[in-house]
């Protein structure tokens, strides 16, 4: 599904990602872990070309999704971002109603059939396990619901444009345990239809939700493998020190 080959990424002269190659299978959850500044968020942003927005950056190597190099000149970034949704650390709903937040992507993409939009909003909210909680207040402001609900609303917003891949950058770090649990349960359901890549500082969360884990340190991919292996018997001492909390 996602394939990365010999990636090097620079912020100016700073070598942020160094010779990284790895593949991610469809319908799996991959966790990216590592200490702050190790390059995991930079790596995540490669997949929807968000790093393009940062000035004075350089990328070498190839990033392919479904066999297509997404950095080829003929790839339209807008089209790419329809296929690759993203959820951020803090919930960031638009200052609009709950309904309009989810409908926004569809409208931007030129859809104006009200019936289809309403159906897809309902479908996305159901998929994000939020429908039952908001179905009676769809016209209320998105800011009127709790932080955990806002984050699931952002997930629904990302799902509404029917992406293939969902990127999550610490999606539960600002949430209480119950909301965190709901997001994690949601991820299990979503992986039936989507490929998920998540950045997390929470080791237990990475262990709980992911199929594969990649450990980054100082811009290098130190170890990548099945999560159950990484958290029971990692190959590298450095990985063991990090996951057991002795380092980082």
């Amino acid at each position: 599904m996602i394939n990365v080959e010999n990636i090097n990424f620079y912020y100016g002269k700073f070598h942020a990602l160094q010779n990284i190659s790895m593949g991610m299978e469809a319908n799996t959850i991959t966790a990216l872990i590592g200490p702050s500044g190790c390059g995991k968020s930079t790596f995540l942003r490669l997949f929807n070309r968000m790093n393009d927005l940062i000035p004075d950056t350089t990328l070498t190597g190839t990033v392919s999704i479904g066999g297509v190099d997404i950095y080829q000149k003929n790839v339209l970034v807008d089209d790419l971002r329809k296929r690759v949704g993203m959820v951020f650390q803090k919930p960031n709903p638009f200052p609009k109603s709950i309904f309009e937040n989810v409908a926004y992507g569809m409208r931007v993409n030129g859809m104006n059939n009200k019936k289809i939009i309403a159906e897809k909003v309902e479908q996305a909210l159901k998929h994000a396990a939020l429908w039952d909680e908001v179905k009676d207040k769809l016209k209320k402001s998105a800011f009127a619901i709790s932080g955990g609900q806002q984050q699931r609303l952002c997930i629904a917003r990302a799902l509404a444009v029917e992406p293939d891949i969902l990127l999550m950058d610490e999606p539960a770090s600002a949430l209480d345990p119950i909301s965190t649990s709901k997001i994690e349960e949601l991820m299990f359901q979503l992986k039936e239809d989507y490929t998920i890549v998540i950045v997390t500082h929470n080791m237990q969360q990475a262990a709980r939700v992911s199929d594969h884990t990649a450990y980054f340190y100082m811009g290098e991919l130190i170890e990548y493998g099945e999560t159950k292996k990484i958290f029971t018997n990692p190959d590298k001492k450095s990985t063991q020190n990090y996951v057991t909390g002795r380092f980082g």
Partner: protein
Amino acid sequence: MLQLELELNDLKNQVLAMWQLVYSQLEKSKNAYLTMSRDLAFEVMSMERKVDAFELLIDQMCEQLLALKHPVAIDLRFILSSLKINGNLERIGDLAHGIARLVFELTHTQFDPMTAKSMRIEEMFDETLEMLLLVKNAFKKEDNKNVAAVLSKDDILDTIDKEAFFQISSKTGQLQDEMQQSLLIFNIIRKLERIGDHCSNIAEEITFYIEAVVLKHGGNN
């Protein structure tokens, strides 16, 4: 040192303290047997509760570490191994206690040291004590290079156990007192053989902890 490391060290120290007690129980059982000492046998029996208390304490420490610290990788393997080693040590303590009871009963018979000698029981005591010491040092030093030696000693115990069985079953014409004595001694041999099995289990757990390799049941890793 991390708080988790401190707590894991505490756990290790408790397991080693229990090990020392169980070793002492087995050694006293041996000496009670060799000297037919009722006092020493009674001393072993009276210390059994302390072994049980250790088991409960270590169980509780492991449970709390798992619930509160969410250990992973080598830390998780250490706790899982400690939990299983704890169970094995408690069983060895039970068996040492059982041996002491049998010695107590033997002191009420006309004990014939030659019968015991022919069944190689002293050798069994020595082998089990050495096995217990080998696995204790392996755990303490986190070094499993002596695991093979422990497993081969277990084979020696199995052989002695089988020979003793045939020796006793061939003497059905014994007098009642001799037969009773033989059965008591054979019971001790069976318990020592079980202690060897527990030492082997412990050796396998130590290998799992240090190398993440499963040896038990022929290994499935």
